[in-house]
């Protein structure tokens, strides 16, 4: 496939690897933020290929994993409200909340539907005018503009039974929180490609400058990731800390202005709860006043019991990069993709699932 196959070339990959091995002298720890990168890194065995000077750790870039249990509980509570249809992306269904999951709620008779796109969510609303259709808005800046587009579409078409429970999260604030905590020493950031396709490279510039950390925006194929690592190594060896785009075919410095405009029209920054990190200011999105008729938060009175974390699960620490899956006593024995205990094993982009499926636990 065009734009994919070329970036899987083993010739280009080995050229980049030689370059990395030749130049990397300083021991450095790089964090890949995005869950998509985590999966690609494990699938292609990239960690094992890198010289011993380089260590890679996964960050909090799996939107499903970072959704706090309290918010999953609220989604489940909403599914119990008579006349409510919950619409969501597939990954959310199996995530265990404090007491059950959406999938269990569905098995118990709740109307929970999986969609591929918010376009389908609006369609469900227009076809079920006697019901209230609540879309679970999870995802980062990549997804938020598509949810904003659905709200505007509903408004234009006069659909008044469509609601969004906005659990969106923003990437730069959580990266800051990780750097501020100082829990993990990081020497370089593999910045998310598709988030940056929307927000561009400018938001990372402030971070590179303030924390003096090299930031390189990467695509998702093995050659993309190796190119990104090679650029990070060059910066580290030269003592630089700037933002570079390795994924130039997909990311422009200004991002996608049209998508940013739409996202900012519908949403405004708000505090958000992150699994493992608690509430972070201005790290989420809520619907603006002008669109409050679509806000599930205001339309429904959602009461839940206090949230509980799955016993023994250390997803929170894994998401902060302070622990790895094999540090968890449940990993691979009790907790597997077939019988997941925590979200990092449920989600296909979770660290525990990637370690389990691709044997990353052996290589660290």
């Amino acid at each position: 496939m065009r734009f994919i196959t070329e970036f899987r070339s083993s010739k280009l990959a080995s050229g980049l690897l030689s370059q990395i091995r030749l130049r990397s002298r300083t021991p450095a720890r790089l964090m890949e933020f995005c869950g998509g990168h985590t999966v690609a890194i494990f699938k292609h065995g990239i960690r094992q290929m890198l010289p011993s000077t380089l260590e890679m750790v996964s960050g909090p870039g799996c939107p499903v994993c970072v959704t706090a249990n309290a918010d999953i509980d609220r989604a489940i509570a909403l599914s119990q409200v008579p006349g409510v249809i919950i619409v969501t992306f597939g990954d959310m269904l199996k995530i265990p909340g404090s007491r059950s999951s959406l999938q269990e709620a569905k098995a118990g008779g709740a109307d929970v539907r999986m969609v591929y796109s918010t376009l389908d969510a609006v369609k469900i609303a227009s076809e079920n005018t006697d019901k209230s259709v609540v879309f679970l808005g999870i995802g980062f800046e990549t997804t938020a503009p598509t949810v904003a587009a659905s709200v505007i579409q509903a408004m234009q078409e006069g659909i008044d039974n469509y609601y969004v429970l906005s659990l969106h999260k923003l990437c730069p604030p959580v990266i800051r929180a990780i750097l501020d905590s100082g829990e993990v020493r990081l020497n370089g950031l593999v910045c998310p490609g598709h988030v940056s396709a929307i927000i561009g490279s400018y938001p990372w510039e402030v971070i590179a400058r303030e924390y003096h950390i090299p930031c390189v925006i990467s695509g998702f194929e093995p050659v993309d990731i190796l190119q990104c690592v090679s650029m990070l190594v060059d910066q580290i060896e030269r003592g630089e800390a700037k933002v570079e785009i390795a994924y130039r075919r997909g990311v422009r410095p200004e991002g996608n202005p049209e998508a940013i405009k739409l996202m900012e029209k519908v949403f405004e920054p708000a505090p958000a709860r992150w699994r493992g990190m608690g509430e972070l200011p201005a790290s989420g999105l809520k619907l603006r006043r002008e669109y409050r008729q679509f806000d599930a938060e205001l339309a429904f009175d959602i009461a839940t019991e206090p949230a509980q974390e799955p016993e023994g699960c250390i997803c929170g620490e894994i998401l902060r990069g302070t622990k790895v899956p094999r540090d968890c006593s449940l990993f691979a024995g009790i907790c597997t993709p077939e019988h997941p205990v925590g979200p990092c094993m449920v989600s296909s982009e979770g660290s525990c699932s990637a370690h389990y499926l691709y044997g990353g636990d052996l290589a660290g």
Partner: protein
Amino acid sequence: MCLAIPALIKSVDGMEAEVEIGGISRRISLQLTPEARVGDYAIVHTGYAISIMDQKEAEETLRILDEMAHLVEESG
């Protein structure tokens, strides 16, 4: 979750387009990329084109990486 794949735009109809992903035709929204044209490769995420592939940049990246691979080969 930010998974997005390049897809060839085969026809454009207002704010929608017909694309081909792995041999299968699909309708996507161009709400976020009104500049999209037939023949472009859209980066598709949950039914929306979130960006248009820059073909020139892709070729340039490949050219630079190819040159580097040759250099490494020669010196190694």
